[in-house]
Structure formats: C-alpha cells, structure tokens
C-alpha cells in the first residue's frame, strides 16, 4: 500500500508513477503498446461504457496481451453528444458512439492489425472529413483545459494516476514551505474568483476566514450543482476527484481549518462513489488525516448528501442542511467566513473553484492571471446543451466570445436551425440574444447584458424555442424550489408564474406585462436570499430582448416559435382532405364535423388545441400555425 508521509516520499511516488502516463502523452509506446480509455462519466455509463471496457478486457486476456495492452475507464472527455467515446493511445485516436458490438472489430482491426476503424472515427460536420486524432477535432482545439486538466486523461479511481500528473505536490509545497498568509497572498494574486455563481475573490474569502479567530474552522466544498442543465461539477468529481480534495486541503491550511465537508447532491451517485474512493485512498496514503506530509497539518474530509432542494446550493442554506436542519437560508451578515458551520468560521467554495486551486500553486499565480480578461482570470467550464450540435463540456479562457463557443467549439445549431438565444446562469441568469454573440465573456460583461456567469450552464436555443415559455419554465422551477420563508419570493414568484402561464395560454393582457415588471422589482428588492433576488432575471431579460414575442402572445394570441400549444390554430386544408374521418374520431371534444368522403371542418370555438387531429391525419390535411 502506498504510504506518503513526507515531501520526499511524494516525489518518489511521482517518479515511480509518472511513467503510467507516458503512453498517453506520447512519450513512449512501442508499435505494439496500446492503452484504451473508455469514458466512464454518467452520460456514457448510461450508454453501456462499463460493458465496453469489460469486453475489451476480455479480448485482451483471451489474446494473452495483458503485458502491452490495457483498457480502463476514465473521466468524462466532455464530448457527451457523441458518447460513448473511446480513445486509443499513443495515436490518440478518438472513436465516437461506440457500441459493445463494435468492440471486437476495433480490437481486430485497430489493436491487432493497426488499421483504424474509419466508420467510428469522428466526422467533422463542416469539412465532412473523418478526423484521425483527437487533437485535430475542432471541439477541442480552442479549449484550454485547466480545471478539467485530468478529466478523460486519468483513471479517476486510481490515486497513482493522479500522483503521476504531479498531484498533491501543490499541497506539499504549501504545507511544507509557505505560511498561510503567503498561501492567501498567492491566491489573491492569481485573481481566481468563485466559479459557483457570485464570482467573489477566492483569496479574499480565505483571508476573511483566516482572520476570524476560532479554535475550529471548516472548509465546505459546494457540490450541490443545482442549475438544471449544468454538469461541470459532476464531471470534475467523476473524472478527477483528487484535484478537488487537494484544493480543499490547501484551503484548509490557508484558513486554519482541520475538517472539510463535501456537500453533494444525491442525484449524482457516481460522483459520490468516486469521491469516496478518492477520500479513502488519500487517507490510506496519508495525504489526508493527521500530520500531512510530516508538516504537522491535520485535515480530513467527509461527504454529506443533499436531498433534492435547489436552495441548498445557497451557502447559508447549505450550512443549515449540513447541520441536519431544513435547508432554509439565513440572513447575511454574518457571512460564513465569520460564522458558518456550527457558528464557526467557514469557507464555502465551489467544486470548479477548488479544482483550480492546485494549479495556482503548481504553475504560479502569474501564470494563472496571464489567462483571461482584466477582471476575470483563468478559464471557465461551460456545460453546453440545448439546440447545439456538440453538447458537452467546454473549458475556455475567460474573454472567449459566445460566438466562438457556439459555432467554433459547439459546431453550431442543431439541424441547421437559426440561433435565437443563449441562456446562462440558470434560473438566476438571463437570455443573451444574437446581437451580443461577440461579447467576450467574463463576470462583468455578462451582468452588463442582463445575464450572469452563474455556475456555467449554457443552454442554446433556436428559433423553434419560445422565450415566453422558457421564462415560464424557470419561474415554475423557482416556485417549486422557493423555501417559502419570505413572502415576496413565495407569493410574488407564484403570481409571476400564473401571469406567464396565462400569456402562454392566450389569456394575457397588456396589464400583465406591467405587472410582471413591477412584481420583478419588488421580488428582487425584498427577498432574503439569492434565489429570490435573482428569480425574475429570466423574465426581465427575455422581456428586454424579446418583447415582440411577448406582444405577439398577448395581442395576437400567437406564438411565433410555435411551441405554445394553446395558441396553436388547427385547420383542415380542404384540397387535401379525402374525408377518411380519422381526425373526427380522434378529436376528444368532437368538434370536427364531416361525413365519409366529405371535406371535414374544425369548429374553432370548441377546439381545445390538443393536436390529436394533426397526428391522426395520414394525408397531411391538417395544418397548424
């Protein structure tokens, strides 16, 4: 068993393990040597990546090739759209949408005979060309992977592989040679800001917590990832848990904490199990626990589960939940840095923030702050989803434009549809319309255009998505998730939701538009926590940029995107109708008249817009608009 009790032993372990990655970094590899990595993230596991590894292992064994061929799972490669993905090193060949049944062919052709399986190679949709090496895929070319540096490169269940990347050496540097004050100064200098939403300086947060005097302090890793449609933090924990643990230990040293908690949502069972494996391994190796690396610094980490409440991502609510209470937010100040878990000074940091921490000490604050914009340093991971070709995880330097993310990395809009808006910041954020596609994104620029960085969810919408309905969707989410403690949030958002529902169902009035605005103001000004304070953002930003769409719903009772069911208008085209009666028999309210072989007619006054006639007509004689 690996035991590492001093910086020297850590270096020895590095020397011993680093060759593990040689094949993957192209440093070694006889023509016969191969390493097969299969994505083992939630998305790909759902599509049977476990069986794929299993099948490879079986074939390797059968052919007696254990010595030079290996197969293993890795964290998420980020290119979830095309999963399950496998990579073969040293050539760095990238196979997409692999099925268990494809494994024998890959094995025979590629592994045994050195012939790539062309049909499984990724095809560049623009060039219409098969791409042979992962390095040449445009999805990856413009990315800069800092927080995701090890995701998809190492086996997340083996601490040796993390050590081989130089893992835990930042911790050694910090506890072995720097004072907590120096650690904080370096962090401040790096310019790293919280990736969980608010974007507060991580160094300053640590400074406040370190200045609060107390016998006992805590580090909490916020792994609640509540924004629906975001999966950055999940992928980091599934693909590289140790970097988060190392970040937490460094944070602990900086502020003087000896205990850390990871608060993680229960919807992420795979991430929970990977984290637990990592904690157990780090503890067994002596990299967590008492007297870490002989420095006298003690630090341990435990996992605590959430239970499905979005508001628990808010730090004071999270702290209540961790104490076994209802997860209701508290008032700030006092901030957790003064009085947090059990009233003790606590630094709450997001998963991605913490994954960045070891890099700051490994490569230096100057290196880190050389990336990004004036106010926002480093990179940001976005979970790109919605109507986009390359759904997946994307990490780019701050200051990259939305256009680059959507078109160059994301491969453009699905099905060739037209871009309409990008939603960032989840239920607290807003929609960014086309005219801002060239905005270099950082914390400030996104706020300036009525959205926010948020935690990194980025949902792309096309002209087939209705903005009013999207606002309604977020409000519904907020109404379900409001903890109900304060009236403006509890009642105000409910009222906004009702108004939006009325508008999308054709009952909206001009007054409603005014009321939405004034409600939004009241809710933002008088709510206790960030959930309420930001809840109206999706409504305000869509009203700002897509007012014409609201007006079409209200005044013309028409949904331009064609998504609001109740505003649809069904008609039978007389020239096409052959009178088969199918629609009339399927209409739940019996509002279609006509007899056999006669043209049918819909009684508009009674039609409930259910769409049954449209799906039943085999002669395309029913139109909807």
């Amino acid at each position: 068993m690996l035991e590492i009790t001093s910086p020297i032993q850590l270096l020895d372990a590095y020397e011993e393990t680093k060759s593990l990655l040689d094949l993957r970094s192209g440093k070694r590899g006889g023509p016969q040597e191969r390493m097969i990595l299969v994505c083992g993230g939630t998305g790909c596991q759902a599509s049977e990546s476990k069986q794929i590894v299993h099948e490879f292992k079986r074939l390797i064994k059968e052919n007696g090739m254990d010595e030079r061929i290996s197969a293993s799972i890795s964290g998420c490669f980020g290119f979830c759209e095309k999963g399950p993905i496998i990579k073969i090193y040293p050539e760095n060949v990238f196979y997409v949408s692999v099925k268990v049944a494809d494994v024998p062919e890959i094995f025979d052709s590629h592994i045994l005979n050195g012939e790539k399986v062309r049909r499984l190679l990724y095809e560049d949709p623009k060039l219409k060309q098969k791409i042979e090496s992962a390095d040449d895929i445009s999805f990856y070319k413009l990315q800069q992977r800092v927080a995701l540096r090890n995701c998809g490169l190492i086996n997340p269940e083996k601490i040796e592989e993390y050590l081989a990347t130089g893992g835990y050496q930042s911790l050694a540097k910090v506890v072995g040679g720097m004072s907590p004050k120096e650690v904080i100064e370096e962090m401040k200098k790096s310019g790293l800001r919280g990736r969980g939403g608010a974007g507060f300086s991580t160094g300053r947060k640590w400074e406040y917590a370190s200045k609060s005097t107390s016998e006992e302090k805590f580090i909490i890793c916020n792994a609640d990832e509540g924004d629906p449609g975001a999966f950055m933090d999940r992928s980091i924990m599934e693909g590289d848990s140790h970097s988060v643990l190392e970040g937490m230990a460094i944070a602990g040293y900086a502020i003087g904490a000896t205990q850390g908690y990871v608060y993680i949502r229960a919807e992420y069972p795979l991430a929970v199990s990977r984290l637990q494996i990592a904690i157990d391994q780090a503890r067994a190796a002596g990299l967590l626990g008492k007297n870490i690396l002989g420095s006298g610094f003690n630090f341990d980490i435990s996992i605590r589960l959430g239970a499905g409440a979005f508001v628990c991502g808010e730090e004071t609510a999270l702290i209540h939940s961790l104490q076994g209470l209802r997860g209701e937010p508290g008032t700030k100040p006092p901030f957790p840095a003064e009085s947090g878990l059990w009233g003790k000074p606590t630094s709450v940091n997001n998963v991605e923030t913490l994954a960045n921490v070891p890099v700051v000490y490994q490569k230096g604050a100057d290196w880190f702050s050389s990336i990004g914009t004036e106010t926002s340093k480093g990179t940001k991971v976005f979970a790109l989803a919605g109507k986009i070709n390359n759904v997946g995880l994307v990490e780019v330097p701050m200051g990259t434009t939305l256009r680059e993310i959507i078109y160059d990395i994301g491969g453009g809009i699905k099905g060739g549809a037209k871009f309409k808006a990008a939603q960032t910041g989840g239920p607290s954020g807003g929609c960014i319309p086309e005219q801002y596609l060239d905005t270099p994104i950082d914390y400030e620029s996104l706020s300036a255009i009525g959205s926010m960085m948020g935690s990194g969810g980025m949902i792309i919408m096309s002209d087939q998505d209705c903005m009013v309905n999207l606002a309604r969707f977020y409000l519904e989410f907020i109404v379900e998730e409001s903890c109900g403690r304060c009236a403006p949030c509890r009642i105000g958002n409910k009222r906004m939701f009702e108004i939006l529902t009325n508008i999308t169902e054709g009952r909206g009035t001009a007054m409603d538009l005014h009321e939405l605005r004034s409600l939004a103001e009241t809710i933002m000004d008088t709510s206790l926590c960030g959930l309420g304070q930001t809840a109206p953002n999706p409504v305000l930003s869509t009203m700002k940029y897509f007012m014409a769409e609201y007006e079409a719903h209200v005044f013309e009772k028409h949904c331009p995107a064609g998504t609001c069911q109740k505003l649809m208008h069904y008609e039978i085209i007389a020239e096409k109708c052959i009178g088969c009666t199918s629609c009339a028999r399927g209409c739940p309210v019996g509002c279609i008249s006509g007899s056999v072989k006669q043209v049918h007619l819909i009684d508009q006054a009674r039609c409930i817009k259910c769409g049954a006639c449209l799906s039943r007509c085999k002669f395309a004689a029913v139109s909807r608009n």
Partner: protein
Amino acid sequence: MKKTLKHCESYQEHSKQFQELGEYLDSLQIDQRNPRRKDTLIMTLHRAQMIFGYLPEEVQLFIADRYGISHADVSGVISFYNFFTVTPKGKIQVNVCLGTACYVNGADQILAEFERILEIKAGQVSADGKFSIESLRCVGACGLAPVVTINSKVYGKVKVSQVREIIERFLTEDLEVEEVSHA
C-alpha cells in the same frame, strides 16, 4: 397519546429492515449529548429510504429515538427535501428529467406520453403499486437529453414514439435482470 414503537405491527413485520437500519445507526456511533449529532441525519434518512422504499412514521420515530431528537425534528427535515417520501412509490419508478436541457428537447412531451400510457400522473402511483412517475431536475446527463431513468437504468435521447417500447422492454428484460441480481 405517544406511540411506542415496539408494539407497532409494522415494526414486527419489518424487523429485518429495522435491524439493518439499526446496524447503520450503530456504525455512526451517535452520541446523544453531542449537539452536532444531527449532521448525519440526512445521510441516515437516505439510507432508511433505501431500505424501506419510503419513510413511514414508524421509521421516523425509530430514527428520532436513536438520535435523541423529537419526531418533529425528523419530519420537518423530511418534508423540506424533495427526495424524501412518506408514501411508498411504485416498484418500477419512472423518472423523467425536466431540467432545462431536457425541457428544450421536448421532455414535457415524453412525460405526457408516460402519463398517457401508464394512466397515472407525475407524483402518482398506479393502483396495483407497480408503477410510479416522477419528474426530476437534471441527472447531469444533459448530453443525452431528453433523459428518462427507470429504477437505476438510464435512457437517453428518448423519443415519444419509443416510450411504449421502453416500458415493455423494461418489463420483460430489465426487470428480470434486476430481480436476479437482488436475489
């Protein structure tokens, strides 16, 4: 009147499950004088729900007793969190993700189709206790949107036209596999 646990019928009937929960609680070494002992309460409730399938009153009382806290402390926490349920769910639990990525890819129509075929609404259990449907928010597999999970199996890129087939396939193939692996 305060109920005493030991005389509850269901306590006798489910003694094996209570024993399992009891052993888990033993391993936590709860010190009833420690004001911080509740930090494991949510973990315990997760475990209990895994064992019993839901959190009936007897289970809540059992847990309250072991922590040395009031029943109201336990039920207050349970009612706050969406994950916990005090009524049994179906043997086959269908979860339709209504997170943003799934929603913009038509998850609401997938949900409607499950509701139509199984003849129950989200949040309900079928009369025979076999099926239940829930909607949930993002399982983090947004690349596969729209996503549906049935018990522990994940289905991605689901189309309305596939829903019936998914249910039928689960009933014939996957359920058997599950039963075998649980046996």
